[in-house]
């Protein structure tokens, strides 16, 4: 697949604070998830891609064209910012149709497109209310409407699901998926793994300004599987279970947790381990209350990748 967005050896720092360090990417059409904790450089990368910031080193090509001060490119790009800032005294409809006029749509066409965009994000009955009175979820959806109103090929969303309730989150995820099916290129940045997992399998992991992993999420999951994992098991007879488990060679370490009856097992082969557990429990007729893996989250992936 031809890559829509390409960056080569991209570096950016604010004063002496490092923003981005040597990032080379190729992004194809469909949804690409940009994952990283707060302050990892996600927003900096997105701002560089949309030409809002000047890179100190490196080049960026979007749809084959240079980005910096190439404003005609923006008829093909839709950007949904992270900040929660609006022209507070405008109504929803005026905000969208006003911005559409800046896309050189004549006034009547801008109105129609604006109404259509508001329908997509289900804000039609709030279109005449002033933005000041919008709730956080509505503002987030309005930002999404602003990014897709001019039907761009490339949609860039900076933390679109941040701080909105689960119901609105599900609605927005469905919307983003609809746009993927229309063949758009979408970049979604977030710091929560399940949100991205619900949308796409293609992920870029970014931390401290560097790209740590890029590719299919399951490839990364398996990567995690191979590295030692901590699993906490609460059962009626922890010592008995431990005694049985010692024989398994996939178990690296077992320590007895502080609370009664809890066991912390470190294993390098989760499939093998989870395959054995049901049999052990059934054979020895043990009462198992809980099986959880405390480090099965994004942070653990990063800690592992950074080799902490």
């Amino acid at each position, binding site marked *: 697949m031809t890559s829509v967005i390409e960056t080569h050896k991209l570096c950016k720092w604010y004063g002496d604070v490092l923003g981005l360090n040597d990032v080379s990417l190729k992004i194809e059409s469909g949804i690409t998830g940009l994952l990283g904790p707060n302050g990892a450089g996600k927003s900096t990368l997105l701002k560089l891609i949309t*030409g809002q910031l000047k890179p100190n080193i490196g080049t960026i090509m979007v749809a084959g064209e240079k980005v910096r001060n190439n404003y005609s490119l923006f008829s093909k790009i839709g950007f949904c910012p992270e900040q929660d800032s609006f022209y507070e*005294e405008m109504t929803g409809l005026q905000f969208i149709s006003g911005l559409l006029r800046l896309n050189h749509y004549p006034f009547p066409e801008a109105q129609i497109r604006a109404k259509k965009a508001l329908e997509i994000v289900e804000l039609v009955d709030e279109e005449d209310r002033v933005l000041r009175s919008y709730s956080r979820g509505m503002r987030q959806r309005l930002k999404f409407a602003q990014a897709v109103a001019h039907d761009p090929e490339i949609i860039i969303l900076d933390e679109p699901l941040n701080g909105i309730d689960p119901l609105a989150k599900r609605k927005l995820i469905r919307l983003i998926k609809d746009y993927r099916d229309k063949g758009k290129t979408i970049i979604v940045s977030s710091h929560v793994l399940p949100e991205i997992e619900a949308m796409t399998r293609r992920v870029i992991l970014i931390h401290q300004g560097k790209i740590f992993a890029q590719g299919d999420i399951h490839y990364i999951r398996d990567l995690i599987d191979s590295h030692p994992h901590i699993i906490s098991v609460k059962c009626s007879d922890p010592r008995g279970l431990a005694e049985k488990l010692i024989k398994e060679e996939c178990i690296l370490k077992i320590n007895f947790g502080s609370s009664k009856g809890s066991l912390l097992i470190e294993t390098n082969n989760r499939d093998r381990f989870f395959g054995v557990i049901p049999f052990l429990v059934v054979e020895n007729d043990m009462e198992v209350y809980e099986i959880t893996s405390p480090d099965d989250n994004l942070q653990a992936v990063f800690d592992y990748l950074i080799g902490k």
Partner: protein
Amino acid sequence: MCKKNKVGIQFFLQSINDVFCFFFDLGKRAKKTRIFYLISFLPVMMALLIKFLQPFYSNRNIEDPYIFSNMIMVFYLQFLILILSLFFGTSVCSEEIEGKTLIYLITRPISKASIIIGKYGAYMVLVILMTVIGVFLSFMILNINNLLDFSIYKVLLRDVSVLILGIICYSAFFTFIGTFIKRSILFGLIFSFGWENVIQYFPGSTQRFTIAHYLKSLLPSASSTRFSFLLFRLEPTSPRVAVLILIILTAIFLAIACLLFTVKDYILED
């Protein structure tokens, strides 16, 4: 299909017009614009008060046109248009940065220069509207009794055009200041009320370095009177040259503002 981007002046003017309409609608509705509308009606209120008090001081024989040209005009020229252009000029750029709404503008298919010029134009029209309405009303009030002889309207026209020229030049300068310095309001105040007043005590052509000088040289009747604001010794440049210089200054300031705005990276986190 996205708009075919015809590179060239026609496209540039088109985007300026779009930005102009966007901010003109927004400006009309903004709360601060309404407050400044009230402020711009102060001279009208003053004119009314003067008319109201006149019968009590019948011994004073200052005729009204003199009041208008020497006092109301001075008030406008020296104070009101400065305050208005300062606030609206600097907010062309810093308002977008403080409110973090710049992001919506620079991700549109229009050049950054057209954003500056479009918004500058929108705010100019707003300020000019405020001023013209105020001047016209106060002029009418003060010349109630001789509304019929048409020579006075020539005076009104000249005064209004001088004020408009003043607004355009000052706002261009403050727009440049807005894109250039973070503490733009304070610098603007020091320039317009510190520098432009102190300069009048200096001899020779140092007066050439203020915008106020060219504006005053367009007003013939502004001779030295006891108001401390006016130039003590005004060596006016000829009107045509003054107008030319003002226009050139406006163009230069706007060009620099656009250049700065295009080149600078505005980090939005304050």
